């Protein structure tokens, strides 16, 4: 009896299905109004643009699931995005193209992971408020990136590296497949792995988790490290798409998009839930709203207001869900 009630409740969960409904409305609106919406080109553009938001939003979802938040994602994107061209444009890479290319992907992601360790240690061992702890890189990360590049725009022609942002697999953008791959891995992590179970327990009730012997510090650091690593990867994709790296602009305001996507996707800000595919759904909605307004000749500034509206609606639905 109460099982059916539980299932029914699951079925009509507004915080999850509200997002699907929103997606349906946006798609329908576009089909009716936006010219050439059903073109393959539209799909490609949207996939290649939504990928970075989705990748970062998945990492953000893990951090929020621990009850934290990560404001440094955009700055870490800039840092890794600035590092990559520095490496593959160096003399070393000119001499060893393969090694240089590998390093230009591995090193920035590694640096990003280190930033994640820093965030995680501050939040867990030093008990700094997540918003303050990640504010450190939010402020300094982009500055560091600009110092590294002397504030210059780095342009390049490197087809191998650009594959990250412009390549196609089975006719669809490479980064779309990358999102899918990461999502499948993270979904497995959240629903099946020990770490995932511990992550949700820490977010659900940290004191109980600690009492049950869960390594709370390590789990939190893990979440920040994954989030930072994914941000680093997203930074590389942005650079690859543009064939140019501008430390001042890569990942600008990404933290807000990622948080918004996670919330729209049904992540509870107080922690304890990590809907990975929800984060992707949230990212898609945010991207489509941006696209819809743009494609219909409405200024970008208005899109910001629309985004705010979506967040309000999502938070409202979350509040309504609380008993």
């Amino acid at each position: 009896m109460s099982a059916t009630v539980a299932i029914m409740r699951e079925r009509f969960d507004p915080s999850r299905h509200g997002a699907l409904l929103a997606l349906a409305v946006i798609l329908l609106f576009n089909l009716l109004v936006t010219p050439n919406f059903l073109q393959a080109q539209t799909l490609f553009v949207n996939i290649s643009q939504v990928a970075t938001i989705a990748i970062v939003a998945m990492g953000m979802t893990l951090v929020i699931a621990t009850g934290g938040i990560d404001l440094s994602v955009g700055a870490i994107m800039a840092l890794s995005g600035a590092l990559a061209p520095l490496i593959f444009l160096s003399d070393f890479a000119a001499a060893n193209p393969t090694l240089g290319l590998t390093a230009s992907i591995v090193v920035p992601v590694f640096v990003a992971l280190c930033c994640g360790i820093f965030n995680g240690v501050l939040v867990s061992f030093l008990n700094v408020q997540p918003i303050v702890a990640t504010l450190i890189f939010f402020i300094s990360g982009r500055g560091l990136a600009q110092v590294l590049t002397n504030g210059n725009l780095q342009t390049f022609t490197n087809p191998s590296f650009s594959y990250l942002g412009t390549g196609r697999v089975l006719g669809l953008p490479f980064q779309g497949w990358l999102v899918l791959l990461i999502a499948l891995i993270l979904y497995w992590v959240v629903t099946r792995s020990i770490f995932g179970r511990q992550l949700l327990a820490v977010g659900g009730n940290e004191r109980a988790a600690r009492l049950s012997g869960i390594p709370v510090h390590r789990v939190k650091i893990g979440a920040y490290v994954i989030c930072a690593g994914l941000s680093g990867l997203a930074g590389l994709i942005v650079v690859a798409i543009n064939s140019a790296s501008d430390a001042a602009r890569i990942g600008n305001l990404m933290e807000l998009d990622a948080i918004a996507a996670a919330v729209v996707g049904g992540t509870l800000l107080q922690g304890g839930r990590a809907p990975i595919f929800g984060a992707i759904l949230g990212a898609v909605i945010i991207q489509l709203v941006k696209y819809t307004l743009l494609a219909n000749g409405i200024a970008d500034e208005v899109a910001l207001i629309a985004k705010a509206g979506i967040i309000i609606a999502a938070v409202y639905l979350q509040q309504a869900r609380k008993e």
Partner: protein
Amino acid sequence: MTDFIQMTGIGKSFAGIIALKDASLAIRPGEVHAIIGQNGAGKSTLIKILTGVYRRDAGDVRKDGKPLAVSTPREAQDAGIATIYQELSLVPLRSVTENVVMGYEPRTRFGLIDWKAAHARTREILARFGVDVDVTRQLGSYSTAIQQLVAIARAVSLDAKLVIMDEATSSLDDQEIETLFSVVRNLRDSGVAVLYISHFLDELYQICDRVTIMRDGQTVATHVVAETTKLGLVSEMLGRDASEIQAAGLTALSGGHGNPGEVLLEAEGLRSKTGLRGTSFNIRKREIVGLGGLLGSGRTEAARAVFGLDAVSEGRVRHHSGAALDTPAQAIALGMGFLTEDRKADGIIPHMSVRENITLAMLPRLKRMGAVDRERERELVAHYIDALQIKTSGMEQPIRELSGGNQQKVLLARWLALEPEILILDEPTRGVDVGAKFEIQSIIRKQVADGLAVLLISSEFEELVEGADRIVVLQEGRSVSELQNPGITEGALINAIAHHHERSVA
């Protein structure tokens, strides 16, 4: 003398659980009145009804003989009832004056705050308490005691006729307590009534005129303090007539018939910042060791220290394996479990299912290639749901939807699933209905027969006396004596607790 506040027939229940049933309280003007009772006796619920935090379901509240209707704390304040909480509700970053006059600032002709008048008034009130401080300085720069006095000053400045002090002395040192007491006497002499809530019986005898005892949501009795004895108060608080029980002798279910094995864990002279001041005890195989004592005697703190949750500043905890025991994870790895007192804050993960809650502490053992071995997990969970008769629609049901007793069984299953060597049970049957309580107790008993060692903490003396093989009596963070079953009676236990109380005064 007519009563200033008269509460009669007060009833209140939360989600079907009765918190107060026909409770009453009468406070005369200008008296210091104490309320005592065990945890969950209904003291704070009764006070929250008086101060408008909760709405009563039944009963009558009168002030000066006229019905009193307050539904918010602000209305209570306007009716002359002020509350000084344990955690002060003041603003430490603002000046002393601002804290005293906040919300009731004197105004100049132009509608601005008249700071001169405000400072003067604050100084005058504090001077009446013998407190001389710079009222323009930040409140936070003064000690807790001064802050507490400022809170009282605020109450007085609002013309309070009744000041409620909830555990006011818990964070003060002896001298500060003395200052506070003189302020309380000062208030009394000026006709203000004080309602005093404290776990320290000694304080009652120092400043209180009358005392109301509560138990199980009911008012048991009101006495003139001078006419009571500590033993009498303790036995009334616990609902046991000490001498009668002493005469009745041993109950049928008592422990002490077991055959305890080797010592598994030994705590020696534990001291900690959390209030332990020399606690020693040991736990042996196939044995239930009870920790007896009043609230605040350090029972839970001792358990937390043993489990590696709180750091110990002196003394040590020795596990028979010789391994270090500094964190809960280490304790669990050594085969220990800790069923905590506060189910909601320390126990359940509300969003998670019954299944996930049961296996939370044993995740490392369910590991198969980095993942949770779901098949074994299901088997185990099904086994414990069946063995402990957990009433649930299925193992996937979120734990928050279960009743209190069933949540408690899930948490018990969490620890039993570890097949522990030592299990700490802090109030294992609190807030659990009678049926589930009996089931939980018999599950524990069966496990002990199979070799489990249990450290049992319970505010219910019956549970301790009947369940434990030995009871270590704690008082103010010290282990003061040990009782051995068979032979323990509730009277004997009460005696042990109260006796040491008397001695500590002398």
